[in-house]
């Protein structure tokens, strides 16, 4: 008992600010709860035990009243952070080495929240991928994701995106490559086998052709589906009525 008495005051004063106001009441209440404490956890740390006794038994109504009178002050809102923007990469060794090797083929290097993005022209894409995988300095051995975007109305409509990861360096980069409609992208399956299904998915939903792919066919939608649903000019609610007519016996809605 004497041990607890000693330990209570420091734990009170050291507690949160909102609890400071009811420190006079808290002592009797905690004493009342002592029998409970002893039952519950005699071996627990004193500061913890005092706290649990307080929460378990708010015996004095005065303490409760005071709590309701004084709502704890809201913490001030953190100042708004500036929205992150794309910035040109400065002194980036990878960008420099790529530019040295491929010169015109590397269009730009940008960073967004410390994540590097390199824009590459279609002509050198395959060589850049091979270089990034095999070159000892870059060593990007893992293709995390391969996807595409549709910028309808642009001169080069699509943008194929590669996410590469280096297990050696533990770094992640993005590659972007603009592709016009009808152009075919050299397949990355010979570089990373993972690209196989990812390219099939891009083909399925965007209709981008990958030359050199071993088995380029639809992966999610039915084989005989018409159209490419993730293109911007494909209505979001549009369903392939030809396919439906062929494969589903749609019932007449019951009256």
């Amino acid at each position, binding site marked *: 008992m004497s041990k607890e008495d000693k330990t209570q005051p420091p734990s009170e004063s050291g507690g949160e600010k909102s609890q400071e106001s009811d420190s006079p009441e808290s002592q009797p209440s905690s004493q009342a709860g002592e029998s409970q404490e002893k039952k519950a956890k005699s071996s627990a740390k004193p500061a913890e035990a005092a706290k649990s006794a307080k929460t378990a038994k708010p015996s004095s109504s005065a303490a409760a009243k005071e709590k309701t009178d004084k709502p704890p002050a809201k913490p001030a809102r953190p100042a708004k952070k500036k929205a992150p923007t794309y910035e040109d990469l400065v002194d980036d060794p990878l960008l420099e080495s790529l530019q040295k090797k491929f010169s015109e083929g590397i269009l730009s290097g940008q960073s967004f929240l410390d994540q590097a993005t390199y824009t590459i022209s279609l002509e050198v894409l395959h060589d850049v991928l091979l270089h990034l995988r095999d070159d000892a300095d870059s060593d990007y051995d893992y293709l995390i994701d391969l996807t595409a975007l549709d910028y309808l109305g642009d001169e080069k409509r699509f943008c194929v995106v590669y996410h590469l990861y280096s297990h050696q360096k533990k770094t992640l980069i993005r590659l972007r490559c603009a592709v016009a409609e009808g152009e075919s992208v050299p397949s990355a399956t010979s570089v990373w086998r993972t690209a196989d299904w990812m390219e099939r998915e891009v083909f399925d939903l965007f209709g981008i052709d990958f030359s050199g792919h071993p088995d380029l066919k639809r992966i999610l*939608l*039915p084989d005989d589906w018409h159209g490419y*649903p993730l293109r911007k000019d*494909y*209505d*979001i*609610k*549009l*369903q*392939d009525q030809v*396919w*439906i007519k062929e*494969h*589903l*016996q*749609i*019932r007449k*809605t*019951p009256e």
Partner: protein
Amino acid sequence: MGLIENRMHENIVTTTVDSVFNWARKSSLWPMTFGLACCAIEMMAAGASRFDMDRFGAGIFRPSPRQSDLIIIAGTVTLKMGEVIQRLYHQMPDPKWVISMGACSSAGGPFDTYSTLQGVDKVIPVDVYIPGCPPRPEALLYGLMRLQDKIDLMTIARTDEQSQAS
């Protein structure tokens, strides 16, 4: 009952053929093991010990459509899956029933898109619709009980409609 009252020995029960058939059918439903999305998780919970669908005689999920008389469409039905559901439904022996579980299978749910069937009743007839996203197991059990009520109204006698059709 006046005609046959007190005319038989004890322990002989008289009833109608319909009520015997309906009682047997509603008390031993055999749902098919078929789940499509998160609703299927709730369906599994309904089948497990806490909610225990077996209390209603429908707790054993059969792995084949040919052994089941109830299909619970639990989840989003894509157009590609609609074709499969139609085939599975036709493989089930009569009499058979369909429960549409959740917003997706009843009306497409939030997926008003290129790939999603806007209601499974577009491809197969549905007996009971259960709202919810996903419905809790209690809701599924309630839907099952409503289906049992519906089965109770069935008759093996040929109705006028059927005789006209045949």
